[in-house]
């Protein structure tokens, strides 16, 4: 028997969890359970990132996406639910149309993903990836140190630093912070219920 490839085992585990719970998000109608399933799906995606060698992105996914954005979403769910378990059902006709469109999109993506020969699995497994967080940090400061290892001189010239996007995103986050705080400031409500924290 061939030796078992643990990377593939964990990949199957994480991908089944991620895909399964993403489908559960679509299929359930209870908004709180949707949020919970989304949390599990995104945490499993973070596991997929770790398996692909992107440690920093995986940790960032957990911290920002799961630990920040989804907490925000759950707060929104709690604040806007009138009854404890509110359900808004979609009509059956819309479901059929959505399934047709979604299904055809999925078929197109699936055929594109599996038919490109250079994307297929390799036969032997190389040594573990060596990307450390230092390279990411240096790239964010504008110095692409991984260009030192790039053999092709054409590719080496094309690797640019990410300092400008970093600064833009920082200012962007500041703008979003101020804007969201302003938009969500307490105002008089039309027919308010006594919701308060």
């Amino acid at each position, binding site marked *: 028997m061939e030796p078992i490839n643990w990377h593939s085992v964990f990949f199957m585990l994480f991908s089944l969890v991620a895909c399964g719970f993403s489908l559960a998000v679509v299929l359930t109608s209870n908004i709180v359970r949707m949020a919970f399933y989304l949390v599990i799906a995104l945490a499993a995606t973070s596991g997929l990132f770790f398996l692909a060698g992107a440690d920093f992105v995986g940790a960032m996914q957990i911290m920002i996406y799961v*630990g920040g954005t989804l907490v925000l979403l759950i707060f929104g769910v709690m604040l806007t639910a009138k009854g404890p378990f509110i359900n808004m059902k979609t009509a059956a006709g819309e479901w059929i149309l959505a399934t047709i469109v979604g299904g055809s999109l999925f078929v197109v993506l699936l055929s594109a993903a599996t038919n490109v020969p250079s994307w297929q699995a390799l036969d032997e497994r190389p*040594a*573990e990836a*060596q990307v450390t967080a*230092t390279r990411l940090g*240096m790239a964010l400061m504008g110095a692409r140190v991984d260009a030192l290892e790039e053999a092709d001189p054409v590719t080496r010239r094309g690797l640019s630093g990410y300092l400008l996007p970093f600064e833009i995103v920082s200012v962007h986050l500041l703008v979003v912070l101020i804007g969201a705080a302003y938009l969500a400031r307490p105002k008089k409500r039309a027919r308010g219920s006594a919701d308060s924290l």
Partner: protein
Amino acid sequence: MAEFLRNYISPDWLAYAIAAFIQAFLLVNLVAVGALVFIWLERKVSGRIQDRLGPTRVGGKFGWLQTLADGIKLVTKEDLMPAGADGMLFKLAPYVSFCASYAAYLALPLANDWVSARLNVAVFFIIAVLGLEVFGVILAGYASASKWSLFGAMREAAQVVSYEVPLGMCVVVPVLIAGTMDLVTIGQMQSGLFINWFVFHDPFTFITFWVYFTCATASVNRAPFDLAEAESELVAGFHTEYSGLRWSIFFMAEYGSMFAVSGLAAILFFGGWNGPFPITHWLGLADSSNPLAHYVANFLGMVNMMGKCIFGVTFMMWVRWTLPRLRIDQVMTTCLKYCTPIAAVAFLGAVLWTYAFPGGLLIPTNYGPVREGQMLLEPYPPTAYNEAPPSGIAQASTTHERGERGTD
């Protein structure tokens, strides 16, 4: 360990699975038995601070089996669930909290290279995963279908998420001094005398340690920041409706998180497994090629590390029974008006200090500035006390297990 088992159990995957299971089991025991010990310790410490004795009957003079008796009592309690509760979420919430708290132990080293998964981004991973505990709390508060639980859960979620900001900034200061987020490397860099510890590196890091401890206490919802479980205000906050074993899992998660943040503080600021004096170095245990001597040196390091963590947890308990509880607006004020600016100023100060005095001010540090020609992507070169850390995420091994390492 996996290779050792492979010789005895014929299907290969079963050997690896058993080895992984044993390591996970040991870590779970660390959390669970630790919680047992800490609950007893809390009752003793609180008793002494309040001028009484605490438990003294069960298990002899000091009552150290009291928590076990309590655990047996909790297991035999009736498993209640409120009528309007969302069943699945109600049952799942304690386990979400516990898993988040337990996952932090995956990247926390207990001795030199004794770590479950040696991550290059270990510090970031631990901070990220500890922030997931809030989900268990929110789910518990929501699924209990009770106003008090929901209020407690919302306040706790707001508190934990707000305190992640100064916590992250405080954690960045030792990372910038070390130049790496790998906890094993950070611990190795603080080897030698206790003056090598990062907390004594510059006054800004010293300040950062205290801000870190405040933010960590708020992050695990310990008093004086424990209004989520405020017994005098909200019945019991988000775990009002939980009884028996489900409640005890919440508390295992809480004590597990306390131990994890103490462990992080110990490694980042207090040298981790390095004692105040490098005794194992003087005895020649660490340098020898004898694996048994190496094991003994690491074991002493683990004892050091556990001692520092237990001291951190005891310090949190001490603060709990000394200071009164803060209101939610005071909690938010502390975070936004005090902790965050102080952390930011300390960060700036530490950057300027490292720039101005790269070799250390009074005592030369054994981790210096970047030397001429040194490759920036390698960790610092090994000193006599430690081994050369690998330059990648994991060493080339015969298995394909990602990050799974044995202790031999």
